[in-house]
């Protein structure tokens, strides 16, 4: 069933008003235009995602297109396309790599100096596009660094970024990418493989401290017949999952910092625990993951609605995170929420985002540096103003800002 070629057009660019209207209509509502269920509230989305892989499933690949889909993911086995026991095993492995404990060393040794280096460059200018000049630089270099790739080489990073941008239309139109995106994505995927493959082969012995070596070292304990295509696809997925959405989250976080009166001063005086709460609120209000598609594995009931086997459901996570039933003053940044991490910005359930702790660490280091080093940060009135783009994943650009000298 192909329902979603209409989805990007059906969602308005700035959808928060639409989400408010949808929630008024119910937790789970039938939409004729897409022949699917729209899950609009926090309760509904959480219940659906918690039952992932049992009651619900992520969209399956059309068998006729399976080979091409795999090739666009790198050609090997990847977490997102695995199911059941294999998925659980690989998901746990990713979680270990990116556990809050594990990323502590990256915060000190990598993230903080990297953020400081970027700000050394842009701070004296007094103005910058924080999307292009800061948010677009940090996550991609972070992923490259932990994989042991040349993250300080601007040309190399630029090449990877540009190829990933060519893949974006394919991955940005879930659950069914438009056919027009296939060919371009396949070509970009092949080129990305060419960029990464020499590094993958070079680390085959698995003796290094980097994540490519670790993937070689531990992969054969995870899946049978582990080979270089599996390692390559793991590298590709780390870039895919660890760059664009973290960048978008960072942009949203900076946007709120620039536009909410007094927030920068408040955070500047606050301790890290409060800044962590700010990061969570920014994720809740401006997280890029707007819609998650699912299929029902069997007849079931969700928030009182009878869902039939193979029905399509869209979980509107960004709507759920502004649900007034679950969040007091849902449109406001509240740094005193009882459960600051209760949002769904990293999804929920057995397919919850494996890179959440790393993304949080990057956001925290970024906001910590920016509140101190870019005083009186505010929108640049003489530059293009930000506008929202995307469909199931959304963000804003550009983000031109000015600030006072320190």
């Amino acid at each position: 069933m192909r329902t979603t070629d209409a989805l990007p057009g059906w969602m308005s660019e700035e959808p928060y008003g639409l989400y408010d209207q949808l929630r008024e209509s119910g937790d789970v509502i039938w939409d004729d235009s897409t022949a699917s269920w729209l899950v609009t509230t926090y309760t509904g989305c959480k219940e659906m995602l918690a039952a992932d892989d049992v009651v619900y499933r992520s969209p399956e690949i059309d068998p006729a297109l399976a080979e091409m889909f795999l090739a666009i993911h790198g050609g090997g086995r990847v977490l997102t396309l695995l199911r059941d026991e294999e998925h659980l095993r690989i998901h746990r492995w990713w979680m270990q790599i990116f556990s809050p404990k594990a990323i502590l060393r990256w915060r000190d040794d990598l993230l903080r100096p990297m953020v400081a280096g970027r700000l050394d460059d842009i701070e004296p200018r007094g103005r910058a596009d924080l999307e292009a000049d800061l948010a677009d630089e940090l996550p991609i270099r972070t992923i490259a660094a932990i994989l042991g790739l040349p993250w300080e080489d601007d040309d190399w990073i630029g090449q990877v970024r540009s190829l990933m941008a060519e893949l974006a239309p394919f991955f940005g139109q879930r659950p069914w990418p438009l056919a027009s995106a296939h060919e371009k994505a396949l070509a970009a995927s092949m080129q990305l493989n060419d960029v990464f493959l020499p590094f993958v082969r070079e680390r085959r012995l698995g003796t290094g401290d980097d994540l490519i070596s670790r993937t070689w070292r531990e992969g054969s304990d995870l899946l049978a017949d582990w080979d270089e295509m599996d390692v390559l696809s793991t590298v590709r997925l780390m870039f895919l999952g660890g760059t664009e959405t973290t960048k978008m989250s960072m942009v949203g976080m900076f946007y709120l910092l620039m536009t909410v009166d007094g927030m920068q001063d408040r955070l500047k005086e606050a301790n890290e625990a409060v800044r962590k709460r700010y990061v969570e609120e920014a994720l809740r209000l401006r997280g890029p993951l707007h819609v998650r598609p699912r299929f029902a594995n069997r007849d079931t009931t969700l928030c009182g609605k009878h869902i039939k086997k193979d029905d399509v459901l869209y979980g509107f996570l960004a709507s759920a995170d502004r649900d007034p039933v679950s969040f007091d003053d849902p449109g406001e940044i509240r740094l005193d929420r009882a459960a600051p991490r209760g949002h769904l910005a990293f999804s929920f359930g057995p397919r919850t985002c494996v890179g959440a702790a790393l993304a949080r660490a990057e956001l925290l280091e970024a906001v910590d540096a920016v509140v101190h080093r870019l005083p009186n940060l505010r929108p640049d009135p003489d530059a293009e103003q930000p506008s929202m783009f995307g469909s199931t994943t959304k963000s804003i650009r550009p983000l031109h800002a000015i600030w006072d000298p320190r």
Partner: protein
Amino acid sequence: MTVDWLALQAFPERCIGTGTCVELAPLYFDQREDDGTVVLRAAHVKHEDADDVERAVDSCPVFALSLARRDGDSL
């Protein structure tokens, strides 16, 4: 004397190893070295820690933790 207390329980077979509980309430949770799944460091929760533990339990994305109030003199 009757004492109310909070009983903490973990279901490691459900755990996917996010480590969120360890971050939010490290006195009560740890992770196994080999697969990252949850290990309880204590099963009885002190009242002064109840908020932190409750937050950790609520944050678990796969409901691998539970916290229940018990009435009685078991302590």
